[in-house]
């Protein structure tokens, strides 16, 4: 490979500190192929996805403006357009077979209060209630919760927008620090107080233990849970 070939790449890591000749000899070969010259028109693209059914979820990431007619079922026989009961509303949504509830909530229903901290059921930031029970929505398939009552942090406020007692208590106790785990902590606390309105601090500690907080605000979250129990 000549020096003029190298100039086309100008690679960062390889030339650094190396003699030019050596760098030239070791410059990587990059094959982008003629796919780059193939211009995918929108028409081709939509034809492709209608045929394959593989990337419709991608389009629906961009909001409700997906005008492409959907196939009623995927090749695997799973109905894609389903109804979800989220925060007391019925939401029609196009869901891929392997899609997680967290992704559906965040990217299709605009409910970004549910956070993704690990996407593998370790941290609890994505905690939502399904039938009143805490679930890690990152590890729950959306198709499994059709017809179930799903509650997210956006669904807690009262009819006039007043905060849920747990939310009020978390404000009063300055429970959140960075706030990223907070929606999950709120949902865990709500679920606890729904089934046990007067928990001991130790019961609350165990009930909340599926939710990590790297800021280490555990004491103040527990203060919040106990205050909510007192004041609810």
């Amino acid at each position: 490979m000549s020096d003029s070939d190298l100039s086309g790449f100008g690679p960062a890591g390889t030339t650094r500190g190396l003699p030019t000749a050596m760098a030239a000899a070791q410059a990587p070969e990059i094959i982008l192929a003629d796919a780059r010259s193939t211009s995918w028109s929108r028409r081709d693209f939509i034809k492709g996805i209608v045929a394959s059914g593989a990337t419709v979820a991608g389009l629906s990431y961009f909001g409700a403006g997906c005008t492409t007619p959907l196939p009623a079922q995927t090749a695997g026989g799973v109905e894609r357009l389903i109804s979800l009961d989220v925060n007391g509303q019925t939401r029609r949504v196009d869901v891929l077979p392997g899609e997680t509830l967290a992704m559906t909530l965040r990217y299709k229903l605009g409910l970004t209060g549910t956070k993704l901290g690990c996407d593998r059921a370790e941290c609890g930031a994505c905690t939502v209630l399904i039938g009143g029970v805490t679930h890690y929505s990152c590890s729950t398939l959306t198709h499994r919760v059709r017809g179930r009552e799903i509650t997210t942090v956006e669904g807690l406020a009262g009819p006039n927008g007043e905060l849920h007692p747990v939310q009020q208590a978390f404000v009063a106790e300055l429970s959140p620090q960075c706030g990223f785990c907070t929606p999950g902590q709120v949902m865990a606390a709500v679920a606890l107080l729904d089934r046990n309105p007067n928990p001991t601090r130790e019961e609350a500690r165990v009930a909340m233990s599926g939710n990590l907080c790297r800021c280490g605000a555990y004491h103040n979250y527990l203060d919040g849970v106990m205050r909510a129990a007192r004041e609810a």
Partner: protein
Amino acid sequence: MAELIGKDFTPPDIFGKVTGRARYAEDFRRDGMLFCRLLLSPMPHARVRSIDASAALAMPGVVEILLPDDVPEQPGPANNILTYEPHFVGEPILAIAAVDETTAHNAIQAIKLDLEPLDFCVDPLRSLRPGGPNARTDGNTIVPREGIREIKWSQADFDEAGTHLPMGQPGEEWAYGDIDAGFAESALVLEESFVTASTSHHSMEPRSAFAYWENGKCYLHASSQSQALTLPGAAEYIGVEPENLVFIAEYCGGGFGSKGSAYPVMSIPAHMSRKVGGRPVMMRISRAEEYFLGSARPGFQGRLKMGFRTDGRLLAVDLYIVQENGPNQGFGDLGSAASAVSIVYTPVNMRYRGIAILTNTPPRGAQRGPGQNQMHTAMEPLIDKAARELGLDQVAIRRINAPTHESGYGGSQGPISSAYLREALDMGAEQFGWAERRARSGQREGSKVRGVGVGQAFHSAGSNGFDGLVRITPDGRLHIHTGVGNLGTYSYASTSRVAAEVLGYDWANCEIHRGDSSRGLPWNNGQFGSNTSFTMTRTNYAAGMDALQKLKEIAALELGGSSRDYDVANEVVFQRANPSRRITYAQAATAAIELGGRYSGREVPDDINAMTRRSVEQLAGSGLVGVARDNLERRGTVPALAAGFVEIELDVETGRYEILDYLGVADCGVVLHPQSLATQIRGGGVMGFGMAGAERHVYDPRWGLPGSVGLHQAKPPSYLDVPSEMGWAAVDQADPENPVGVKGIGEPLMGCAGAALLCAISDALGGFYFNRTPVVADMIINAIAGRSQSHRPLQVNTQ
């Protein structure tokens, strides 16, 4: 006066946090948004021979590829954006954008990557041995002010050391006093080697980023502790003028130092977006990726020789630190560790030597108490060992060595602003009931034994020279513009209240503007280094004082006399001699707009930063503008100091322990916001317990592969690992170099707790010292059984 200092309040951003309305970088959406995924190096050090992306780019829905050639080269040893020579597992090589994330992911999988493996190193001492591997082709260490060099120690250096840390040629050193004389005078000399593990930051929000271009401006949403300070660096990574970057970082889901300033990966979606004509690009970073490229605290291998007088006074310290630096620039933990020793223990004579050795592990950066907290967790148990040998109480030996206001800092022994560590120890000992608890230490009940520990830590906690910017608008409201960032400590808000305090404002009539560079923000320091409380109270004081002076001048212009004749109260400027001669702040704001010039921001002081100048230009004419650089006097290092007290119950059959009680005591000057100080003391304590007892990065020495790429492997503490109630206190003594007496505090709150826990474990074991963090259950069991540990002395990457 408004009397806002030292009072609790509800920070405005907390409502977004509890309702889910707070938007972090991954919560933004825009029409036409693409997703990008990264191709990461599977090897610890390699050179790309070839990349065949043809199949990936032919996939339906794939839009663009971003190669190292497309992004600015970062001169070594800076962290790369993308590279053809990855230096650690998980270093990004290229990115692919597609219409959805699954397609982008599949395209990444379809890339054929041919790598030439290169020498790598995950153990600093191996690299220092004669003929040992280098992490970079151009060397194995970074020498301050010189750059990348190769330093190897001789076989004799290793042979002479035995099980101690060898001490060959250092990369940096300093000394004061005469350590030989100090050791000669000492009644007890301890010489110990130690290891502290490297740890991840585990920020709950991975560093996802989102960017697009519109009308020549780049809009970047990123996870960032800091606002103003991050912008110029991010602009440089992106290759855009700072004034053409709109940087939005209203919320940050944890950073702990790892998101303190601009970092390369945040620029990738901006580069990709530019390549696709400005179309929005979302780059989600996974938890595993966060362990690769999310920075980490460097581990230490150290050697510490200490000489004590019979009363415990430390006469001499000789410290050597080998820092596991990652492959790039790293962070100056080792030097900070040495300086921390100088101020917390005030040794009469001290020498420090250190060397940062490059390893093919994640690039290192600042993590809460960078250097200080490794040092304190290593050294505090050894202070206890000395106390035990000298027959002294653990608190007493710390008291006698505690700094005074006249103590010196670091190798230069420069001045400090104030130090109340001794008062913190006394307050803590009393509130914790140290004497009673110490009396029960070692008591056995069944398989459980009690232990107590006290720990200390330091971090420098203040800066100066940044700008303050406030506005009073014709509706009478005070607008405080802050560029500091929002790490989650609420200090952006508590420090803003100082401007309201100066102007005597009712807090309900104040509004904070922040989080988005288009909102007219001043040039401020980053939200890191425990500096915000000290630094930002000064800037807001300076801006508030400027606004106050302008209010009085406007009153004099309107009502006659001199500005010196006027005072303020209840948001009104009045003539002292005749209080009925008065104008409201609202009227003064209207007058300021009419007067123009410096009153309304049409003219600005010469010494303010260009970023502040642009912001004032944007806001000019909207009200009375108070803007000033913090030119207040600052004489020396501002010490944040903390003491922690722990009691544990350790099960001698399982090696597990329960932390029964914790008390953290802060020397943070005047307490600015009690409730947030309490959360910092407790939260720092939780992080310290994790550092002391669980967390570590692990690398397989044979292949250089990481073993800690999930929260369950790297083990940050959960609710069940820490006490459900943790106590706090503060000495609440004013620092003389801050207009409201405030110092920062965030970082030492971690180190003092971790150190106290390690001391308590050793105390429960009757004085067994591990010389290592973390101390895990099997180490405790081995110690109880009298067995040797499963790791070799100085071994890194252990369980």
